């Protein structure tokens, strides 16, 4: 039946089926992109493609079963008819099941939905990386934010790799399993969690920004984190870290803040939004440099107490301020444990 409908279409791309216009089997009906075959209405393209494939398969199956019908029917007589019937039923069940499964797969696991967000050139990625460090001056009209996910995703993975590398150069040999898990969890958690939180705040503050743009903006802001951590894990000067934190971190924060200001109206909303993102951005870098392996060591030390620590550490020369931080956290943790 679908084969006969398919024969009515004369265009090579399938024409306008009734099913297509009514949108049967599509979770999202993208009305405005019906005749746009550039690939933007992915569910419809997937559905058409699937139907065309199925028509070919059905005609091929029909041709094959016709031959089998002819051969087996006249050769095996009555028994052949029963065997033939059983085989046909099994074939029908198989085809129906396959059709359902592939329809569901095309509907929900269609990675083509993400395809336009990865449509970048290396030059564009490089330009956006550099632009993420340059604060803009024009805040009077909304600044354009590139909505792509390739750059931010690669930056998150790079941050994970740099954190792992940093664990090695700092001499801490923790069980590899938990290290990898916490690195990936931290970076992805920051990117996705803080993006969602700022998007929620932006929704409350009436800022003109979409979730994709927020993910992209914050993701490119991680470029400064990658740079600073890469440098300071190899050159162990704490004063250098503070300078880089202020300069490079500050530039990247200023860029994000300027973009958000240009898309928000009113003093208070601007203050809330930009203050939050600036605080989270800078504090995350502080956390990654100092606390990620230092405070964790401190807490583990306190929690495990008299037991033989399973972790072997090589102590670094710490400046006095970090000693103070470490001691504070230790005493806080000890106090918390004593009060329980």
């Amino acid at each position, binding site marked *: 039946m679908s084969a006969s409908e398919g024969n009515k279409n004369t265009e090579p791309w399938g024409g306008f089926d009734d099913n297509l216009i009514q949108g049967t089997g599509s979770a999202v009906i993208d009305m405005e992109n019906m005749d746009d075959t550039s690939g933007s209405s992915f569910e419809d393209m997937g559905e058409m493609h699937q139907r065309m494939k199925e028509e070919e398969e059905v005609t091929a199956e029909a041709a094959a079963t016709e031959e089998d019908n002819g051969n087996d029917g006249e050769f095996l007589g009555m028994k052949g008819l029963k065997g033939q019937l059983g085989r046909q039923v099994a074939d029908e069940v198989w085809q129906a099941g396959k059709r359902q499964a592939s329809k569901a797969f095309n509907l929900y696991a269609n990675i083509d939905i993400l395809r336009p967000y990865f449509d970048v050139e290396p030059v564009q990625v490089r330009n956006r990386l550099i632009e993420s460090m340059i604060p803009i001056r024009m805040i009077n009209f909304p600044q354009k934010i590139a909505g792509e996910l390739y750059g931010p995703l690669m930056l998150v993975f790079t941050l994970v*790799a740099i954190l792992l590398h940093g664990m*090695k150069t700092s001499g801490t040999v923790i*069980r590899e399993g938990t290290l990898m898990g916490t690195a990936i969890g931290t970076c992805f958690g920051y990117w996705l969690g803080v993006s969602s939180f700022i998007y929620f705040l932006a929704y409350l503050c009436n800022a003109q920004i979409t979730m994709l743009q927020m993910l992209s903006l914050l993701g490119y802001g991680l470029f400064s984190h990658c740079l600073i951590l890469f440098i300071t894990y190899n050159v162990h000067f704490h004063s250098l870290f503070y300078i880089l934190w202020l300069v490079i971190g500050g530039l990247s924060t200023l860029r994000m803040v300027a973009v958000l200001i240009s898309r928000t109206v009113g003093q208070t909303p601007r203050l809330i939004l930009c203050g939050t993102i600036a605080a989270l951005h800078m504090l995350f870098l502080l956390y990654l440099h100092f606390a990620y392996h230092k405070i964790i060591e401190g807490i583990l030390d306190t929690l495990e107490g008299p037991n033989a620590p399973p972790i072997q550490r090589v102590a670094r020369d710490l400046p006095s301020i970090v000693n103070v931080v470490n001691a504070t956290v230790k005493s806080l943790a000890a106090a918390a444990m004593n009060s329980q």
Partner: protein
Amino acid sequence: MAEVDEPGKPLFAGLSDVSISEDIPVEGDISVPVGSQNVDDVFSTLDEPVKDTILRDLRAVGKKFIHVMYPKQSSALLRDWDLWGPLLLCVTLALMLQGGSADSKEDGGPQFAEVFVIIWFGSVIITLNSKLLGGTISFFQSLCVLGYCILPLTVAMVVCRLVLLGFTGTISFIIRLIVVTASFSWSVFASTAFLADSQPANRKALVVYPIFLFYFVIGWMVLTFSPSQ
């Protein structure tokens, strides 16, 4: 077999020197044997002894190993992909990385699973990335190539374990660093030799970068392996 029957040949004898094909009647039936349509023939490999099946699969895996060690521009790895080789390599690597925790109480469990998950999920993410960037390679072909290109890092793991048995201290670290760096660059080079062709020309760098990160993480795990005392 085609039979060309020309019953009117004497009639057209005079025109034999004129090469007009439509004047020459061609009759007969052309029946091309489609092959015995018996369904059972397709599954004939079920009847062979198990040893034959295993040896055939092992030989295919071995041939692909050779393709990885000497990466030329051949499409054998892509044409008949299989996931036996990547599974073997992944399990070997995960087993060898297992004895490296200093805490013998929780030996084995998290590490084997972590290595396994990282390798397979990393491969899936790289494959998705290359497909989203417009690659023409299929999902399992890409998994196959990425899995097979872990071979140099597995070899490096074996060498590192041997080095750790023999030497200690800075010398062993330097040797291991050189070995791991060499095998890591070999892996990246081998996988790009297979995968980069399926991408549009100007986006090769976008596909190579995550592969670089992936093998960097695996190489980092190999390098920082230190056996329990």
